[in-house]
Each structure stands twice: as structure tokens, then as C-alpha cells.
């Protein structure tokens, strides 16, 4: 069945060699780094080949065998296990041997000797065509490999994986456009950005090889973007090769995340690509690396097992075979991960939530329609119940779409603390609590930067050096506690360190020096602490490359304020500092208590409510004739008649006619006298819009079950406002200019 071309003398040997090499390939497919599986069979096959090669085989085959022998002996004498390098080498070797076989079979020119394969003894003919062939593979030139820390970075890696697939898809599409129209600036920009994003993510995860490659590709595209380099097919090749390598890595990450080969280092063959990119950047044409074995193309390997033609060898494909690379790129559709994500325009989400809200209301209108209610049909009742169940479920689902757990950001902090601690040579542990607390995604996104900054500050300046800690009788291990919770009708994030605490004296001195306060200012502790949020404030002597306490804290404060939140500081010298970030629930879903005052309904966030009760006569006492207090659990709590305050006629003239709802904010509490409790309801907070943005009495509005709008009271304001006893509020007249 073999063609007549092979020389007569070797005709009997060819099928045997092909057979052995085929089996070798199968064996190679099963080896794994740090394991010895397959080592002995491979050794065995190589020995068989060596025996075969004693007589009349192509010289390349003999030379190849000598290389394999060196490598194998090295493995056998050394660790007795494969490493990722040896595996890759053997795979390459196998591919090359396959091509040698092919040339033997067809009588065509033998493939070039691969660059970098060392021979212990020169095997004349094999090295003829390439002078560099005998250059030993320097150990420093090993392809980088990356070991994933799955346990530590699982969430981040999963995010990275999803994002990368998206970026690669973008690059792929971009390349297709560039092939048609190489001068398309928008496309070049978008590919540039994709590599840039890749670089950022890789850098964050310490995937250095990946970062380096992405960095070089980014520089290349940047040069193209600035028209410093013309876009040539060579550059397109490079982009493709780079994207291919990144894709290979991403796929490996994906399979490791799904548990395949978890923990196995991923070989990341980037050396050549980087070298080519760099020479392109220098304006040279890329160095022609040894021609790839012709036989790499699958179509020609018929009759020889192609099983071991692994991804690695595909990735090694050189620019000469560009067509096939492009083809492969197009064919390799990126597999969708098992649990996929879809990126959505948030406006669409909002729209969906609104529409579902409408549906729920329409549904209740149908159910409560008097005409429908007189219909006496069990069937109808059942259908309506089913309808309401589905709409409720739909609503809950739609609402949850906007909510994401804060876990991802918290875990980033883990990483940050680990790195910072190493850098500062401090021992730091980060304790996370409430990672599953769900926040509106808009808030989560905008929280990342301020948190990074505050954690940096805590590690850098909050915590003392190990020596100082020991000297103060503290544990050497500094602790930072990061907690998230729904509290006080909002979101509370706390960053707590057990370090040295803020230095009041120095902050004050600095502020006076900087002209932020007058020298004779009489400030409370919290006023002093909040000075660090002033722009331009910095206790400069503590400045380091990482952070200076105060540097950028104004940015933190501004970011939080933009989210309509605030930061509180508590600090005890020698015991640590606690930053408490309070954020409103804008756009979030809250549990609310619907109360009635006069003809109006208001919503009080359930989380701010401590209790509610109907007061007995005598529980409410007047102070100075007009202030009122109510005794709640042994404490006198100021009472606010909500109806009077809001300017609505209240039905409850005497306190015992109404209900007192005790609300709290921070440490303060206040009793609100309302007419009635209507019910508890989960509501979506909606912005009241521009017209009401400057008032702080209402936290927002919500669409109630009957389609009307309920106003959500801002409890912080009600509790903290200056005490205004039962006097009706006078509406403030329009401030016309």
C-alpha cells in the first residue's frame, strides 16, 4: 500500500518505523508533567526505533533518535518524571519525526533540522541546511509556563476566562476586518484596546508571560495606530499568532476551571512571537525562523497517526503557513463555558425591571377587578392564582438581575493584601465577611477603586511593622477585617485594622499648617479625622510609594459621595482604625414598611426600624412643654409626629391613637408617630428624578401594588435632623432668582 518511492532497502523498515512512531505519539498524548506515566513505554519505542535505525534509514531519523535519546536519558537519569518542557519537546520531536517519515515515504526533500535541537555528536547530513542547528537549546530560552493558583484565584480566573473569550472574539473579528481593509483605524484601535485589557487582567493575576505577550502586541498595535509602522501581512500574522497563543492559554484556563488537569502548569509558547514582535517594532522584518516541518499540515500526514498533533504543535505554526493559521483561527470557535454570562446594556435591564413591575400591577388590577371578582368559577380562580405566582416569581427574578454579590471585589482585595504585605514585609491577614451580600451592580463597580485605596492605606500605614507590633504586645500578624452588610436601611462596608490608629495630633498639626483649619479651632475627634478627606491633605512624612494616608483620600471620599454615601472614621490610638462606608440603596430592592399618615402613604426601610408599637397612655411625656419623648425599652427616645413634620393632617391627635415606629440611624434613635401600619412590602427604589435631587427627606420612590407611587423616607434625615417638636412644617417658598 505504500508508494514505490521509498528505496528498496528500506521498504520493509518504513511501515515498521511509521508504526512505532504512531504508537509513540499515542503514548505521548498521555504523559503529564510531574508524572512518569508513559516514560517507560516511550523509552521502549525509542529503543525499538534505534534498533530499526541501525540499518538504512534516512539520516534525519537517526539524528532525531539521537536527540530523543539525550532527552530521554536526561529524564531517566534525573527526576524520572516529565516536565512541561520535556513534554513539549517530545511533542515537537514527534511532529518532526512524522514529517521525516513523510519525506521518506514520498521521497521529497527532508524537512529542516529544527532550531535549537542539540546533538551530542554531530550527525552530518542533518545539520547541513541550517548553521544554527547545533545551537543548544539554552535553558534560559525555555518557553514560559504558567501555573494557576486555582484555590486562591478561582473567582478571578473565571472572570478572566469569560472576559478573555470575549476579547479574543473581538480580536478575531478585528483581524477579519483588517484582512479586508488593513487601514481601518477603528479596528486597529479596538484590537489595541483588547490587548491592553488583556494585559491589565493578566498583570493583575500575575500571569507574567501572558502579560508580556499582551504588552508587546499592544506596543505593536500602538505603533501601527500612530502610523509608525505600516500594517503589513506580517503584522497581521503576528496579531493572529499572538491571539492564538492567548486563546490557547484561555482555553487551558477554561478547562482547568472545569476541573480538567487542574493545577497542571500551562506551557505558554510566546518566545518566538515576542521576538518577532520586538523585531517588528525595531522596524526589521521578522527573523525567519527555521522552516516548519512541511508535514505539519494535517492533509499530508495521511497514513501516519496524527493523534499527537497537539495544540502545542498547532501553536508553533509559523508565518509561512499563514493561510492555515488563519483557517485554524476561524475554525477554532471558542467553546462557550459551562455557565456562561451575557453582558447586557443596563438600560435594557432597567427597562425589563420596569416592565415586569408594570406586569405585576396589571395582574393585580385584573385580579382585583370587581367584574372579575363576581365570576364564580373555580377554574378562573385557579388560573388567576397561577398567573400571580408566575408574575411574582418573574418579578423576583427580574429584580435579582441587577444585584450581584460583592464577592468578586472582596477577593480582589485578598490578592491586593497578599501582594502589599509581601512588598511591605508585613504579616497581614485579611478577614472577609458578608461576601455574599448582594449589591446593586452599579454600586459594586464604583466601589472597587475606593476600596483598593483604603485597603492599601490600611496595610501601608494602618498596620505597624512586625517589630513594632511585637514591641506593643500585639500579635505579629496584623489583621484587616473587611465586612459588608445591609444595615441601617443601606449598605455598610467596614474596613477595620488593628494597627496604630490615626494620629490626631499630627493630622491637626498638618491641617493647621496647610491652612485647612485655624490654629485655635476647637474640633471634635471625628471632625479631626474627617480632615484626611480634605483635598490636598497629606501627612507627607508618611508618604511612600504605596500610599500616604491622606493622599487620595479626598478621591475616596468623593467617589463615595458620588454614590450618595459617606465615610465615617473611628480610631483608637494603638488599637486600630475603622472606616465605615455607608451607601444608600439607590436602585436596590428593600423591604419596606408601608405606613399611613393622614391620606398619604410612606415607606420606611425595614432595616432602619427597631420596633413599632401602639403607645399606652402616659408613655409619651412632654419636655419643656413642646418636646416629646417616649420611653422605649427603658430609654427616653425623642418623638417626631410625622404628620406634623410632613405637613399632613394626622388622624392621630393623641399618641395612643397612632403607632410609634422606632427608627434608628447610627447610634441615634427616634420614635415616629404615624397613623397606621399598612403592610410590609418588598419594593424597588426608584430615583425621584432631578426635581427632587436636592432634598434629603426622601430616599426615593417605589411603585406600589395599586400602581401609585409610595415615597421612601430617608431615616437618617429624620433621626439626625435638629429636634423640631410637634410643629407643622412650613413649606419653603420657591427660591425664584
Amino acid at each position: 500500500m505504500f508508494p514505490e518511492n521509498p528505496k528498496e532497502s528500506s521498504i520493509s523498515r518504513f511501515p515498521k518505523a511509521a508504526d512505532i512512531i504512531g504508537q509513540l505519539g499515542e503514548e505521548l498524548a498521555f504523559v503529564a508533567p510531574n508524572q512518569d506515566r508513559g516514560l517507560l513505554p516511550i523509552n521502549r519505542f525509542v529503543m525499538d526505533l534505534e534498533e530499526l535505525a541501525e540499518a538504512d534509514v534516512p539520516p534525519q531519523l537517526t539524528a532525531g533518535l539521537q536527540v530523543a535519546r539525550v532527552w530521554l536519558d536526561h529524564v531517566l537519569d534525573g527526576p524520572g518524571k516529565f516536565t512541561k518542557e520535556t513534554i513539549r519537546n517530545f511533542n515537537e520531536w514527534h511532529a518532526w519525526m512524522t514529517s521525516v517519515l513523510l519525506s521518506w515515504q514520498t521521497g521529497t526533500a527532508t524537512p529542516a533540522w529544527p532550531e535549537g535541537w542539540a546533538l551530542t555528536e554531530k550527525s552530518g547530513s542533518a545539520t547541513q541546511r541550517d548553521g544554527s542547528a547545533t545551537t543548544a537549546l539554552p535553558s534560559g530560552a525555555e518557553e514560559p509556563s504558567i501555573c494557576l493558583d486555582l484555590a486562591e484565584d478561582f473567582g478571578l480566573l473565571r472572570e478572566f476566562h469569560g472576559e478573555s473569550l470575549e476579547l479574543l472574539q473581538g480580536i478575531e473579528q478585528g483581524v477579519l476586518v483588517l484582512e479586508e481593509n488593513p487601514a481601518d483605524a477603528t479596528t486597529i484601535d479596538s484590537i489595541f484596546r483588547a490587548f491592553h485589557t488583556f494585559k491589565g487582567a493578566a498583570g493583575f493575576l500575575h500571569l507574567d508571560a501572558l502579560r508580556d505577550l499582551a504588552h508587546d502586541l499592544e506596543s505593536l498595535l500602538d505603533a501601527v495606530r500612530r502610523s509608525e509602522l505600516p500594517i503589513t501581512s506580517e503584522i497581521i500574522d503576528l496579531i493572529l499568532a499572538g491571539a492564538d497563543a492567548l486563546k490557547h492559554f484561555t482555553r487551558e484556563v477554561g478547562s482547568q476551571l472545569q476541573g480538567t488537569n487542574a493545577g497542571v502548569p500551562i506551557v505558554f509558547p510566546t518566545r518566538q512571537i515576542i521576538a518577532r514582535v520586538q523585531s517588528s517594532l525595531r522596524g526589521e522584518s521578522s527573523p525567519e525562523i527555521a522552516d516548519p516541518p512541511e508535514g505539519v499540515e494535517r492533509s499530508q500526514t495521511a497514513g501516519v497517526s496524527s493523534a499527537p498533533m497537539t495544540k502545542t504543535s498547532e501553536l508553533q505554526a509559523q508565518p509561512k503557513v499563514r493561510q492555515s493559521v488563519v483557517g485554524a483561527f476561524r475554525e477554532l470557535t471558542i467553546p462557550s463555558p459551562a455557565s456562561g454570562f451575557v453582558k447586557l446594556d443596563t438600560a435594557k435591564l432597567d427597562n425589563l425591571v420596569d416592565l415586569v413591575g408594570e406586569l405585576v400591577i396589571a395582574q393585580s388590577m385584573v385580579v382585583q377587578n370587581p367584574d372579575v371578582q363576581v365570576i364564580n368559577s373555580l377554574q378562573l380562580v385557579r388560573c388567576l392564582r397561577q398567573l400571580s405566582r408566575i408574575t411574582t416569581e418573574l418579578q423576583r427574578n427580574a429584580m435579582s438581575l441587577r444585584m450581584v454579590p460583592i464577592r468578586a471585589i472582596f477577593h480582589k482585595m485578598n490578592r491586593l493584601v497578599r501582594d502589599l504585605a509581601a512588598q511591605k514585609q508585613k504579616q497581614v491577614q485579611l478577614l472577609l465577611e458578608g461576601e455574599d451580600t448582594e449589591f446593586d451592580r452599579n454600586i459594586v463597580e464604583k466601589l472597587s477603586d475606593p476600596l483598593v485605596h483604603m485597603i492599601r492605606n490600611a496595610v501601608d500605614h494602618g498596620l505597624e511593622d512586625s517589630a513594632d507590633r511585637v514591641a506593643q504586645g500585639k500579635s505579629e500578624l496584623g489583621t484587616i477585617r473587611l465586612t459588608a452588610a445591609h444595615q441601617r436601611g443601606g449598605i455598610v462596608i467596614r474596613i477595620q485594622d488593628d494597627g496604630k490608629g490615626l494620629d490626631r495630633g499630627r493630622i491637626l498639626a498638618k491641617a493647621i499648617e496647610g491652612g485647612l483649619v485655624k490654629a485655635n479651632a476647637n474640633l471634635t475627634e471625628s471632625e479631626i479625622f474627617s480632615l484626611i478627606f480634605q483635598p490636598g491633605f497629606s501627612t507627607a512624612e508618611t508618604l511612600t510609594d504605596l500610599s500616604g494616608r491622606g493622599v487620595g483620600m479626598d478621591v475616596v471620599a468623593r467617589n463615595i459621595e458620588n454614590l450618595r454615601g459617606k465615610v465615617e472614621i473611628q480610631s483608637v490610638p494603638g488599637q486600630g482604625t475603622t472606616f465605615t462606608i455607608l451607601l444608600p440603596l439607590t436602585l436596590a430592592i428593600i423591604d419596606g414598611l408601608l405606613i399611613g399618615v393622614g391620606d398619604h402613604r410612606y415607606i420606611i426601610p425595614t432595616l432602619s426600624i427597631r420596633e413599632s408599637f401602639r403607645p399606652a397612655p402616659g408613655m409619651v411625656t412632654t419636655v419643656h412643654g413642646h418636646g416629646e419623648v417616649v420611653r422605649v425599652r427603658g430609654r427616653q427616645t425623642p418623638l417626631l409626629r410625622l404628620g406634623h413634620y410632613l405637613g399632613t393632617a394626622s388622624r392621630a391627635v393623641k399618641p395612643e391613637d397612632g403607632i410609634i415606629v422606632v427608627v434608628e440611624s447610627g447610634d441615634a434613635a427616634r420614635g415616629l408617630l404615624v397613623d397606621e401600619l399598612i403592610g410590609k412590602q418588598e419594593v424597588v427604589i426608584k430615583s425621584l428624578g432631578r426635581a427632587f435631587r436636592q432634598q434629603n427627606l426622601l430616599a426615593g420612590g417605589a411603585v406600589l401594588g395599586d400602581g401609585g407611587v409610595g415615597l421612601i423616607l430617608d431615616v437618617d434625615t429624620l433621626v439626625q435632623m435638629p429636634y423640631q417638636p410637634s410643629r407643622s412644617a412650613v413649606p419653603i417658598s420657591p427660591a425664584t432668582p
Partner: protein
Amino acid sequence: MNQEPSLRAQPAAREGRYLTFTLGDESYGFPVLNVREIIRLCPITPVPRMPAHVKGVINLRGTVIAVLDLRAKFQFAAKDYGERSCIIVVQVAAPSGGNTLMGAIVDAVEEVVQLTADDIEATPDFGGAPETQYILGLATIEGSVNILLNIEKIFAEDGTLSLPPLTKPEPTQPDKG
């Protein structure tokens, strides 16, 4: 009210379609481009401690929008809403970008008219008494005068009309001593 002579000199910029409506005996117009829809009066949730012309908020298919009473805004005598009273929902460009929806209660909606530059006159100077700052220009339609309103001005201002903060000043005020 002479701050905008340039605008006054170019009435051509204001030509286009207008939705006309009435407040009392007067006829007004909104640029049609700003009008999103006209809805019947519906229950309005009053917002406490707001200026009288801010009637409250309504639920417009899931979006909470503020509703102003134009009668109150222009200091017409208060009057019960009639059969033809309705809410014109307009889209106002926010200074920060994006659009906000707001509602304006009017006595009755009339029609959509096409006005050319020749139909529109600059606002005469009343010497300060009527608030001309909301007026885009005057148009004469079939012999009667129609007051064209500047939607941005009318609604933008209400952003500042609300309550001053109820809490005491921020304790961070460093210069208190």
C-alpha cells in the same frame, strides 16, 4: 430681561412644530420635539415640603416622574382640575447629560401647529413684571397670541427649588472656630 439679545435676534431658530395648550384664558406652546406623550390626570402622590407648584410624583409605566402644575408655576388662581385637564409629559435635557421625563399639568391641550420664523416674535420687555425668562417667544396664530415656552428653563429650575438640607451643617466644616 435683556440677557439674551442673540436669541432674540434669531427667532428663526425657534420655528417648528408646537403643541398648544391653555392655562386659563391664555394659550401656550411647547416645542413638539420635547413632548413625549399626553396622559390623563391620574392620582398624584404629593411630595411633602415642596413648593406649591410641585404637585408630586406619578408612576409612568414604572418610572417615577415629577409633575408640576403650570397654573401654580405661573401664579394663576388655583382652580380645580376640569374634564380637559391633563398631563403633558416632556423630555428635558439634563445639564449633566441624558434626559429626564417630567410632567406638566395644563388646563387643556389644543393642537399641534407649524410655526415659521415669521410667526414668532421676540418677547417684549414687560419691564420685569411677568416672568419672561420662561418664554421663548410669542406667536400669533389665527389672530390670537400664543406664548411659546422654554421647557428647559421651566423644568431645570425646579432642580433647585427643593428644601435646603434638613440636617445641621456638615461637621467637617473646618473653619468653625
